């Protein structure tokens, strides 16, 4: 049932994209001029503004919701070598409490002795409660073609349970404050073939790569822009992705080696970004370009 719905959605969004592309073509010369002007003034590009309009329309019936449905099913079904559901998984607010959990992650979990973001915690629960093998889960952790990894759907479901809530990534525990500082240091750490750090692209306001606006993740406004919309249905390729994928692909383009899936490094970076975004309302899983 849900796979049929999904296909209809993919077809619909393909159609919408084609229409949008045509509209863009027609408006191209005007837009190019406007864009050159905008680039000079450093304001938001015309293409980005156009996309925001399109996203607004799409969000009324977001494809992300289909993955929430799939995630809910996975959450409640007895699975894995231990034949257990995830309903006893503690995402920080107590076993099985999902409302508002996503906007309060990453946080420090005493049972694991670690900082964990949503996906890292869900993987932890899949391993401890259901008996899945962590290495197996890390083998193909990102959506590709028709493959949607279980943690992706689960994160989308969990994130949907925080829709409309204020981001409040905790900084009470000493380990959480330490994670913010370590995350900030990794964010600014330049190395590799091209001397890039995260901050090379995401450390200043109003910058772009090609036409893509780059959120300044060290600022409140930029951090919320990045927090918002993940997990996201990405129209490039038509795939559902989480922040784990986003971080992985950023490091690829940073010309770094590959970060471990659901690793401490990512949890620390997400703590830095999440705390910077605190106080803003999270709109729920969304749509990305």
């Amino acid at each position, binding site marked *: 049932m849900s796979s049929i719905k999904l296909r209809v959605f993919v077809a619909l969004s393909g159609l919408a994209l084609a229409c949008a592309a045509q509209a863009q073509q027609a408006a191209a010369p005007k837009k190019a001029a406007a864009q050159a002007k905008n680039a000079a003034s450093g304001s938001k590009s015309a293409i980005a503004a156009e996309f925001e309009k399109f996203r607004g329309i799409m969000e009324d019936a977001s494809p992300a919701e289909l993955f929430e449905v799939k995630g809910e099913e996975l959450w409640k079904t007895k699975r894995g070598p231990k034949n257990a559901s995830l309903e006893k998984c503690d995402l920080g607010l107590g076993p099985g409490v999902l409302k508002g959990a996503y906007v309060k992650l990453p946080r420090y979990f005493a049972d694991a002795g670690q900082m964990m973001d949503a996906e890292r915690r869900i993987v932890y629960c899949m391993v401890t409660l259901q008996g899945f093998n962590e290495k197996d889960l890390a083998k193909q952790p990102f959506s590709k073609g028709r493959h949607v990894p279980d943690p992706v759907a689960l994160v989308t479901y969990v994130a949907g349970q925080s829709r409309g809530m204020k981001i409040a990534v905790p900084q009470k525990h000493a380990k959480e404050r330490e994670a913010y500082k370590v995350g900030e240091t990794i964010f600014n*750490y330049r190395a590799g073939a091209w001397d890039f750090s995260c901050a090379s692209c995401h450390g200043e306001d109003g910058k772009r790569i090609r036409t893509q606006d780059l959120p300044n993740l060290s600022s409140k406004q930029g951090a919320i822009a990045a927090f918002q919309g993940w997990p996201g249905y990405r129209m490039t390729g038509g795939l559902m992705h989480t922040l784990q994928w986003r971080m992985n692909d950023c490091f690829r383009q940073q010309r770094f080696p*590959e970060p471990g899936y659901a690793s401490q490094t990512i949890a620390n970076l997400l703590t830095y970004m999440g705390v910077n975004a605190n106080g803003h309302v999270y709109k729920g899983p969304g749509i990305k370009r």
Partner: protein
Amino acid sequence: MKTLQVSIFGAAALAIAFSAGAQDYRGQAINMMKQDFHAKGIAGIDRLNEDALQLVCNRSGNNPPKGVAERLQQDQFEAIKYPADGKFLGDWKAGEKIAQRGRGMTWKDKAGKTSRGEPNGGSCYNCHQIGAATTSFGTIGNSLLHFGKIRGYGADTQKYVYGKIYNAKAFNLCSNMPRFGHSGTLTETQIKDLVALLLDPNSPVNK
């Protein structure tokens, strides 16, 4: 030998300047990354190690003490390999293609070429406005439109642009711009083609 001396000098000076912090977040961060990252394709784990310049920029928040910056900059400058034939101007048409291409040097790419088997790109348009026809340019770097028209086409300017692309850090130690020659991303011929894109009077950049 000189590189080594300057590096040690730089590191020592900075160690003194920055050892005041109570908690070693930097040490924690580096250890964490070394534990969490793995080599993939051409992107070896050695890419996590800072060279002397990266270390100085990281430890100083990209604002190193002037004396240290000058010495390291000089070091970078002296290591620039200028073309043996003394010519800096290549083919601007080839340069335009290199400027447009954003691939190369990631874990998906191959040694010296992109995942598609093309020569590495310079990713120039990712950050700079260059030719007027391309409106999808990034804004991390400054606009290079009309570069030759504004700055002149002389031999000194050609040599400067070659050096800047080869190693931007020889002119501004903690610049955002990659060191395209120094890192082995672009060949001598490719850099000459990019110089031509900016400085050939016939290049669309100068129209």
